[in-house]
């Protein structure tokens, strides 16, 4: 440890960091409140009629882009700080040897806060299974981690409303818990790739350095998360908002109600199927969700579409193909897809 401290750059005092973060949040709030007048003013400068199709689409784009970017920055920063208290290693230790049931619930909940990137899904999967985390519990984690993430929940809150965000959170967790539990009941350990069963993953007892992180360290991790995630997803966001703006401006309301409305029962399975090959980040799909809902699409159908886009993605399945046999992937898609269908139909029936 002594050699490490010698090389650390000179540190600013903690209070300066706290004050800086507080000032940032206040400044953020002041700017955020001015977004509607600002976007209206910007739209009025353009040579289009505000109430024409193009005017509606442009106003939507000019308002949503800064709004989503600002929300995303704040959320990612806050979660970067929160996540510095968690790690896959800690999560594994909490889950190993847990019974199914309790384990599925814990795994889904930990999926929200544990840092996870789909590029390390394979080592994480093996790390879990080889440390005695039951297969079904591992799946609960793998479903919840991308789907019920903070970006999805807080962006839904900011763009669509807290009720929809809460519904998404609760039912996303339920899909992850039930799907994982069912996969566990099927006892499909034999359907892993051969080499995964034989492997004895090293359980190198890492002296994880996050044990003695200071608050400024955690702030720095938050800033790092913002730089990395916002830098990666901004393209998806612009694409999503553009699509949302086109829907908002040009798609007639009765058309949307007809093809994605409550009465079109087939729209739920169609939304799930369309969602699978679509690959975008949660941040990219939510502006589309916002525009669809505003045009009279049914809540259940839209939720099913969103869950399918995020939870069942083709690239992630290709990654998991390295550890799972095709049969197991088919079961995974079948079980999770059925859960999403159930959520879609349930909400279309209730509302």
């Amino acid at each position: 440890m002594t050699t490490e401290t010698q090389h650390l750059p000179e540190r600013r005092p903690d209070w300066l960091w706290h004050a800086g973060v507080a000032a940032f949040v206040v400044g953020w709030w002041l700017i955020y409140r001015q977004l509607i007048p600002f976007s209206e003013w910007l739209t009025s400068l353009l040579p289009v009629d505000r109430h024409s199709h193009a005017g509606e689409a442009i106003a939507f784009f000019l308002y949503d882009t800064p709004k989503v970017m600002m929300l995303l920055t704040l959320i990612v920063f806050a979660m970067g700080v929160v996540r510095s208290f968690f790690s896959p290693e800690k999560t594994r230790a909490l889950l190993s040897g847990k019974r199914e049931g309790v384990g599925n619930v814990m795994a889904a909940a930990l999926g929200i806060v544990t840092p996870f990137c789909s590029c390390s899904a394979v080592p994480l999967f093996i790390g879990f299974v080889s440390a005695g985390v039951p297969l079904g519990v591992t799946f609960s984690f793998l479903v919840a981690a991308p789907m019920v993430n903070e970006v999805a929940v807080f962006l839904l809150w900011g763009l669509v409303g807290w009720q929809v965000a809460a519904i998404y959170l609760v039912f996303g967790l339920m899909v992850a818990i039930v799907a994982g539990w069912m996969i566990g009941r099927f006892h499909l350990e034999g359907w892993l790739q051969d080499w995964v069963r034989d492997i004895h993953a090293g359980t190198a007892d890492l002296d994880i350095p996050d044990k003695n992180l200071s608050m400024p360290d955690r702030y720095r991790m938050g800033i790092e998360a913002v730089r990395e995630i916002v830098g990666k997803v901004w393209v998806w966001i612009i694409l999503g908002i553009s699509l949302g703006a086109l829907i908002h401006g040009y798609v007639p309301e009765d058309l949307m109600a007809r093809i994605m409305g409550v009465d079109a029962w087939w729209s739920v399975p169609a939304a799930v199927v369309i969602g699978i090959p679509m690959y975008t980040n949660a941040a990219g799909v939510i502006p589309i969700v916002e525009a669809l809902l505003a045009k009279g699409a049914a809540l259940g159908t839209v939720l099913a579409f969103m869950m399918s886009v995020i939870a069942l993605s083709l690239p992630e399945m290709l990654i998991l193909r390295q550890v799972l046999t095709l049969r197991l992937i088919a079961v995974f898609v079948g079980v999770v897809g059925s859960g999403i269908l159930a959520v879609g139909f349930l909400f279309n029936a209730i509302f």
Partner: protein
Amino acid sequence: MDIKVYGPGCKRCETTEQMVREAAAKLGIEAQVEKVTDPRQIAMAGVMSTPGIAVNGKLVHAGGLPDPAKLEGWLQNG
């Protein structure tokens, strides 16, 4: 010195490899830096979140970009 960087090939893993090479060069340490991309070997090394770094067979880091100051510390102690 034998250094392994574990990662399936995402951007952060490449950045990490670059950081390790630069740190070794800066400290004047002669190091063989190997990039391990095979998921089996990554798992067997006990890495669950990538990128991971092992110095002379001992895992010193897993998950996210390493802190430059700490990285130099590992290389000097390794």
